[in-house]
C-alpha cells in the first residue's frame, strides 16, 4: 500500500494499518511543525497525537482538491493553536510597542546557521511571539488571519511579530558573536 490515495481511502474506512502507514509517512514532517509551535518536546508530542487523531477523524472531509499534506499540516497547526489557546491567555500588546530591528547585514553569517539552532531560537520565544512568528513568517498567514485565530487585534499581531523578529535577530547575533569568540579564541 504505497499509493497515498489508497492509504487515504484506508484511513477513511478506519483501517488501522492504513493509519499507521500514513503516520509513518508524515509524522516526521508534522512533528517538526509541532516542535516549532510547542515550547517543548512533551507538548509537541501531545500536539502530534491530538493532531493525528483529528486527521483520522476528519479524513472523510478532505475533498481531494488541494494538497493533502497541506491539509494535514493545517490540522496540526490548528491543533497546536487550540492547545495554546486553552493553555495560555494570549495577551494584547499595544501596537505602538513596535521594535525597530537593527540594521546589521548578517547575510554572510546566518547562511551557516543550522535548522536545529533556528528551531531552538523559536522555541525560546514566549508562546504568543512564537505562534505569531510561525504563522506569519513560515506559514504565510496574514495579520488579519492571525488576529482572528488568536483572538487578538491586528496591531497586536504586528507588534508581536516585530518583537519576535527582534528577539530572534538578537539571538542569532549573540549566537554568532559567541561563535566568533570561540573561533578567534582558537
Amino acid at each position, binding site marked *: 500500500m504505497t499509493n497515498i490515495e489508497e492509504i487515504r481511502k484506508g484511513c477513511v474506512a*478506519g483501517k*488501522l494499518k492504513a*493509519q*499507521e502507514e500514513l*503516520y*509513518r509517512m508524515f*509524522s*516526521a*514532517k508534522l*512533528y*517538526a511543525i509541532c*516542535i*516549532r509551535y510547542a515550547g517543548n*518536546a512533551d507538548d509537541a*508530542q501531545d500536539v*502530534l*497525537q491530538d493532531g*493525528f*487523531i483529528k486527521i*483520522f477523524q*476528519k479524513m472523510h*472531509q*478532505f*475533498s481531494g*482538491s*488541494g*494538497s493533502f499534506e*497541506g*491539509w494535514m*499540516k*493545517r*490540522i496540526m497547526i*490548528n491543533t497546536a493553536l487550540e492547545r495554546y489557546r486553552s493553555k495560555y491567555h494570549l495577551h494584547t500588546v499595544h501596537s505602538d510597542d513596535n521594535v*525597530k*530591528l537593527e*540594521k546589521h547585514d548578517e*547575510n554572510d553569517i*546566518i547562511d551557516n*546557521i*543550522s*535548522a536545529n539552532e*533556528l*528551531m531552538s531560537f*523559536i522555541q525560546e520565544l514566549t508562546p504568543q511571539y512564537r505562534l505569531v*512568528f510561525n504563522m*506569519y*513568517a*513560515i*506559514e*504565510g*498567514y*496574514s*495579520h*488579519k*488571519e492571525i488576529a482572528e485565530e488568536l483572538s487578538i487585534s491586528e496591531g497586536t499581531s504586528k507588534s508581536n511579530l516585530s518583537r519576535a*523578529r527582534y528577539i*530572534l*535577530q538578537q539571538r542569532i547575533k549573540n549566537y554568532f558573536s559567541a561563535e566568533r569568540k570561540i573561533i578567534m579564541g582558537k
Partner: protein
Amino acid sequence: MSRMKNQMDSLFRERLNDLEIAPPENSWNEISGRLKNKRKKKRMFFMRMAAAVALLIATSFILYTFFNQTNTQTAISGSEIKNQKQESFAAPNLYDNNQDNVIENNNYASSRDKNNTNNLKNDRNRFIPADIQQESIAQVVGKNKGEAILYSSDLSNDSFQIKEKNRKNKLALANEPPLQKQNMLPGFISDNLVSQHSLEHHQYEEMEKVEKTRKSYWEFMGNYGSVYSDRLITSTQLGPDEKAAMNAAESGLNSFGGGLGLRYNLDRWSFESGLFYSRFGQSNKQILTESTPYNRNYEMAINKGIGAIAQSEYLVNNSLGVIAYNSSTERVTSLSVNYVQSDGDHDYSGKEQVMNSPVDAMNVRLSDANSNIIQRIHFLEIPLMVRYKVIDEKFIMSLSGGFGANVVTGSEVVFEQQNDEKYVGKISHINELNVSSTFGIGFGYKIHSDVTFHIEPSVKVFLNSLNHGLPVNFYPYQIGIFTGFTYAL
C-alpha cells in the same frame, strides 16, 4: 528595514518549513491505543443506542397493550352490568323464530331504546325499499356510547348498496487569485506558496464551517411511535342522527407506526422521505342489520362457520368499509344482533341471536360489549415532508408539514372477545392508494455531534375518502407521538 524583515522570515521559513524530525518511538503506540479506545467507545455508543431503541419499542408496546386492555376492561365492565339485566339473552339457543320470544325481547329493548331508536329508524327507512320495510326491517341501534352500528345487506338483494363517489464555495475560493494576501506578505514569498496556503486555509475553514454549522448534509432517521387513529365521516345520504350514532358507536384504536427515512438538511430547512408503516382501524361494539329481506334470518357473513346453515349471505358494512369475509377461515359461528322491527304501526325493538351453529354453540354477541369487531388496515406510507428548524442549537425545535402516498398493504377484520381474536375476513370497498397530509412539531436534542434524539407529536389526515361505493365518506386521521433518532451521514 523591509529587506531585513524579509530576510529573517525567509531564513526561518526556508530552513524550517520542510524540516523533518522523527517523533519519539512511543508516539504511534499511544495514537493507536487512543484510536482503538475510540472505536470501543463508538461500539458502546451504538450498543447503547440499540438498547435505547429496544427500550423505546418495549415501552411503546407496553403502552399499546395497556391502552388496549383498558379499552377491553371498560367494555367488559359494561357488559357485566348489561348481562345482569339481560339474563334471558344468555340462553344459547335462541335461534328460533318464535314470535313470542322475539316480542318478549323486543319489549325489553323497547323500554330502553324506544326513544333512541325511533328517530333513527324513521331516517334510515328512507333508504330501504317500502316493500322490505313492510315485510321485515331490523335495526339495531347503538344504545350507549361506544356501541357501533353495522349494517347488513343481502348480497343478492343489494338493498343497501348505494352507488356513489457543499461545497461549491471552497472550489470558488480555491480558484480565487490570492492577490490581497500576496500584497500583505513579504515580496519574495512565492506566488505558489501563497496560493497553496490560500487553498489549504480555505479548505480548512470550510471543513470547520461544515463541522460547526452543518449547512447541508444527509441524515438517516428512524421513527417509532404510538398512534391513535380515528376518522371523520361525511355523508349526503345519511341523516345527522345516523352520523351522530355512528360517531358515538365506532371508536378509534390505539396503534403504532414507524419506519426509516432519509433527510436532507439545507441550513434550517430539511426535506425528508422514507418508508413508514402505520396501522389504522376502528372498533365496533355493536352490530345491526339494516335490512333483512325475505325472512327473519339475520344470518351474517361472520356466522357462516363450520356446520352452520348458511341459507343466504350478507355483507356487513359500517362507515369504514364492507367486511369481505373469508370462507376458508375459521370464523365465529354465531352472532346475535340488536334490532328494531317495525310493522308500520308498531316498533318492536329487541335483541336476538341470529345464527347459532349446531356445531359450535359459542354465543357471540357484539351487543354484550365484551366482544368487538375490529377493522384494521395496514399502510405503507411514502411521505414527502418539509421541515423548518425554528431553533437549531443543541436543542432543536422544528415545524414539519407535507404529503404522503399511503398504500394499503392489507386489511383484516377480527372478532375480539375477551382478548381472543378470531379472524373474520378482510375489508373491501377501500382504496388501495390514499393521499394524506401530515403536520408536526418536532423537538430534538443532539446527544452526539452526529446523533439527534427526537420526539414529534404529529397529526395525519387523509385527504381522500378511504372507502368507495358506500353511503359514508370515511376520512381517517391519526394523532401520533413519534420518537426516534437521526444519524448524520
